């Protein structure tokens, strides 16, 4: 899969993540949604929850609280009011 989705996750404090990935799953205020590359332009407010960024076999998770997600031809932008990386405990 050559084409990738450009995603940036920013909070007022700093840019948490920026890069090209395979898929992003985000908690929209009207339901969780997933975004792949070449998604139709889409904008939503975010609920409190987990943003999951999938790239190959790598997986990053961020706990976000409030904010917006904007998807357009250039990629996806998540403007979170606050966010921090969620480190999964290994079982």
């Amino acid at each position, binding site marked *: 899969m050559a084409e990738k989705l450009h995603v*940036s996750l*920013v*909070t*007022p*404090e*700093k*840019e948490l993540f920026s890069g090209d990935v395979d898929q992003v799953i985000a908690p*929209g*205020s*009207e339901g969780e949604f997933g975004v792949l590359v070449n998604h*139709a*332009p*889409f*904008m*939503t*407010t975010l609920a409190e929850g987990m943003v999951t960024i999938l790239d190959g076999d790598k997986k990053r998770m961020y706990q976000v609280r409030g904010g*917006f997600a*904007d998807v*357009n*031809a*250039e990629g996806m*932008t998540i*403007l979170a*009011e606050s966010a921090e990386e969620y480190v999964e405990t290994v079982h």
Partner: protein
Amino acid sequence: MASLKDMRVQIASVKATQKITKAMQMVAAAKLKRAQDAAENARPYAKRMAEVIANLARGVSGDAAPKLLAGTGSTQNHLVVVATADRGLAGGFNSSIVRAAREHIRGLIAEGKTVRILTVGRKGLDQLKRQYADQIVGSFELAKTLNLDVAQPIADAIFTAFDNGQADVVTLYYSQFRSVISQVPTPKQLIPAEIEATTEETSGGAVYEYEPSEEEILETLLPRNLTVQILASLLENNAGFYAAQMSAMDNATRNAGEMIKAMNLKYNRKRQAQITTELIEIIAGAEAI
């Protein structure tokens, strides 16, 4: 003519002052680094936010547009927010912001507009209350750490004024942090929201899908944007303040150094003259015996 002891005391006092300014310079330099990082880290968010709003604003037009975006249609009531630092000893940093704001206010009053002033930071309040005590409707002090909790009350005060019809146009004065040696007092129009006209159409004219509706998103996003813009400005101000303080204190340290040099020279000359006089007296006394 001051005695040798007086001169010694004076030199010691200037040296003590120099130590203080030197310490302040180093503290400012250390804090500048962090403040600069914070300001730079906040930029992407504020920039993205502006882009998203520009995108959205293109979609809504006419009467459907929220008042925060389009304005109330009147420009009679102006609210000027002046953001300075809480502390001084930073050269002309606070004064230059206040001067820019004052010019703007004077122009508005001359045009017959109603002007209300909101100050952020103690120094701006101190300087403006002499001249515009009646126009100041509120003032805020800054907290040690700048985050959304600091910006939120300021934004709330602006909304209250806006909702009461006391503010048709809201302008924020702050200092833009260009570099360590250059901070530029800049006005930023908060209401009606300034839309970057130059932003290219990123969606290529494609129809956006909104969830929930476009209006609802704009309604939550615009107040959010205001808070974020205020926070970004405060962070820029903070970085600029430490930069200004650092260079002001650097100058003060250098000036003190020059003063000490000149005073030492004078002191040594006087001391030598005194020794010479004493020697002459001793020799003269010895010869007389």
